[in-house]
């Protein structure tokens, strides 16, 4: 299995938000958050567990906000303004442009750094 989904986190409650999150809107939830839509620039998700965006992620997300380093962020189109997992904060390098269509990606903490790679379904 490529994706190591933490069992503890997977058992947490999950909210399903069935539309896009626009600038200025935010979701704060202790468990996992699934968005059936886009997360636009200026929108913000803070989750205790995983964050899954079934659309374009362009806003700010914070997974594992209570300190859980097993939390992950997955998006069909992965281009967040800023990405936080537990106490790690990352942002795209300067001059980085959104390159358009690309496969789904996901982010997690590996060896104390945030790693972003192509999403592979668990086998």
């Amino acid at each position, binding site marked *: 299995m490529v994706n190591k989904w933490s069992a503890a986190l997977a058992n947490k409650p999950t909210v399903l938000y069935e539309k896009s999150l626009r600038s200025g809107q935010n979701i704060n939830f202790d468990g996992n958050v699934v968005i059936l839509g886009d997360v636009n620039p200026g929108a913000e998700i803070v989750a205790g567990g995983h964050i899954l965006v079934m659309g374009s992620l362009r806003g700010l997300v914070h997974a594992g906000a209570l300190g859980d380093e097993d939390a992950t962020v997955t998006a069909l189109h992965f281009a967040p*303004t*800023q990405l936080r997992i537990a106490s790690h904060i990352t942002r795209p390098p300067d001059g980085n442009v959104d390159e358009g269509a690309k496969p789904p990606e996901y982010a997690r903490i590996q060896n104390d750094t945030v790693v972003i790679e192509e999403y592979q379904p668990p086998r």
Partner: protein
Amino acid sequence: MGKVIVVTSGKGGVGKTTTTANVGTALAMLGKKIVMVDTDIGLRNLDVVLGLENRIVYDLVDAVRGNCRLKQALIKDKRLENLYLLPAAQTKDKTSVTTDQMMELCSKLKEEFDFVVIDCPAGIEHGFKNAIAGAEEAVVVTTPEVSAVRDADRIIGLLEAAGITEPRLIINRIRTNMVKTGDMMGVDDILDILAVDLLGIVPDDDAIVISTNKGEPTVFDDNSRPGLAFRNIARRLNGDEVPLMNLEEKRSFFSRMKAMFKSE
């Protein structure tokens, strides 16, 4: 001890944020230590114009409420060492800051910085009152349109009532060709009506759109006409005497000939 300047206009869309970004940056280019404060809570934009949106961790609301130390909320510019941004909150309620908190914030910031440049939200409500609360000087931005000049007049009245008695005017998006044909109010027409001191005029130019796209203030571009206008404005704010720039779209053949003869 630094100076607190608020950039305001009443009407939206006349270029307050662009002006704040460029004047703040140009003052920093003069070697001054600058902080720009975005007070448009819920509709922040200064971060995007400066290309700093992905560095925001804490914001104005966090800073005034003590969720973080003030220093933690200040974002250092990626180009200039002595330029900082205090971003507005995007997902918080606009009533989450009081005028007293703003005054306290401004007095703290001016101990540290030469200029505190405050970007004011459109309108005359809560956000406006907060933005001017700690300000000692005001820059009013308008464009040569009836609606914008009318709102500028209203703002000047409100500023005076609040004790900011000598606001200075920036006329943005002047189009020389239209002024010449009589289809746009010129500088004199507007000054005639508003009767305030002129701080500068900024020509309408595609360079602004391009610089906003890039998240890079146009004052960095030596060939940008609005960039030069903003650099001049910054020098005037800094106390230098700088003549108004020549707004000629392109120098005509005739005036170039004259210039050639003069140089001989």
